[in-house]
């Protein structure tokens, strides 16, 4: 586990933005494209990267509902998913889905970001971007 995700030099901006209920992604302004997972420099053009706020609208690429104990840290059931932000169609965010039942889900459905504390995450109460049906 990460000692302090908020202060990590490379990944910290994602988590700090989430505490203020913003979804931000590492971005290359030269290429005008997401760099995910984050890097200090763009792997395509080597320009320094920055962070860009996204709308929070996304589509559901795929998901799985975990129903039997598989992760001691995560009480089942929970739904984990890959989602595609509307501004970065080549990028997938790993996330959880909330405020929905598995029976209501289908791939490619529209989603909207929201911010919740995740079970077992440090620091206690740290908000994380998760998604719900739009």
């Amino acid at each position, binding site marked *: 586990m990460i000692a302090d*995700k908020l202060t990590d030099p490379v*990944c910290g901006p994602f988590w700090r933005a989430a505490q203020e209920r913003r979804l931000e992604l590492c971005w290359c302004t030269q290429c005008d494209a997401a760099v995910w997972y984050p890097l200090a420099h763009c792997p395509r053009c080597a320009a320094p990267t920055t962070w860009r706020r996204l709308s929070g609208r996304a589509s559901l690429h*795929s998901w799985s509902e*975990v129903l039997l104990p598989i992760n001691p840290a995560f009480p089942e059931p929970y739904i984990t998913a*890959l989602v595609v932000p509307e501004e970065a169609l080549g*990028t997938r965010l790993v*996330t959880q889905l909330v405020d929905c039942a598995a029976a209501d889900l289908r791939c490619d459905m529209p989603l909207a970001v929201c911010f919740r504390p995740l079970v077992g995450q440090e620091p206690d109460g740290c908000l994380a971007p998760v998604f719900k049906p739009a």
Partner: protein
Amino acid sequence: MQSLDQLKRRSVTPDWGASTALADVSGQTAIAGIGETPHTGASGRTTKAMALLAVERAIADAGLEPGDIDGLMVGFGIEDQLTPDDFRAHFQTGNPLWYNTQGGAMVWAATCMHTAAQAIAAGQATHVVNAFAVDWATRRTEGRLAHSEYHADEPMKAHFELPYGWFPQPVYFATFARRHMHEHGTTEAQLGALPVAFRRHANGHPDAVMKDRTLSLEDYLHRPYLASPFRVEDCCMISDGAGAFVITAAERARHLRHRPVIAEGVGHGRIHGAPYIAQQGDITSTPQVFSAPWAYAMAEVGPLDLDVIAVYDCFSMTALMQIEDLGFCGKGEGGSFVQDNRLHFDRPRQQGGIPCNTHGGFLSHAYTLGISHVIELVKQLRGTAPNQVRDAELAAYAGFTADEASTLILRRGDR
């Protein structure tokens, strides 16, 4: 012999990964001996004790003596694999051993044939043993199964995947399976055809962990989800066991005890952006799409020439996707392809099938990470497998590590 350029021209692949440029080693080496331990649940056996037993059996099977062995290949990153000192101490031999850790199981159970071919051609070794052992069932019982720590140790996975419970491996591939079902209409009954076929093979195999437990499609569909759409039956077992095989020059193998099994083609491929499979260009495919074309080009064969295959079935869907990626059907057609007993040992290619994991695979034989898959193919090509495919002459192993895949094409040699 084909040049790298020739092999590359004949190996067209998608743009979200790449083939590894492996030199043509077609026909150079053979598997001359095979050995395995019993495969079990938690047994208290150590990896080294199991590996030494498998090695001892493989050497004897080849008709060689321990003192004839001058090369040892094992895997890296798996706990407590054999060292040259272990080998010499156990067998009381003093000869030098060429030692290489790009062997063992997973993708390396295929690529070790390429690595060994080059070492043998360079005069570094004559008889190489490739060995792999795993004691994860014992480790799990004792609460020291560590292989999930990989996820926590990788910084990007730790930041952006772990917090959301997108691990361990069943969750990855359950997510991929869901997308395959969405894009291609694959059904749960089609997915269930794989565990059911492999269980039938295990029921006919004396060494399979699941030899006494049957599984019908109806049973499968009534089982609860572990991580939807996967049930426990879609996921590899955890077991203790070891396997080993002896590699030597093809010409040399002709003079040993058994009919040789010749390595005709080797392939390897990897996704761009490895190891982050969440970002993989197409999660309804595997890196086998980058590996198989190279191996086919090297062997100068195609999927329809194969009599029997052993596919890395860490999960039912990873096997189904690799069956597509090996070219037995188009992308997305795997669900309907695997129905109608097409993977069963008694539905040969002459009847539109492709016998697959005839020992039971990871789902029902044992989770030895691929070394038993290769050993099973050797038995098939010798004509001594428990679920023997009639007149099997050409076989392929499809290896996999999530972000990498490999392919080994084996042919029954002449005496």
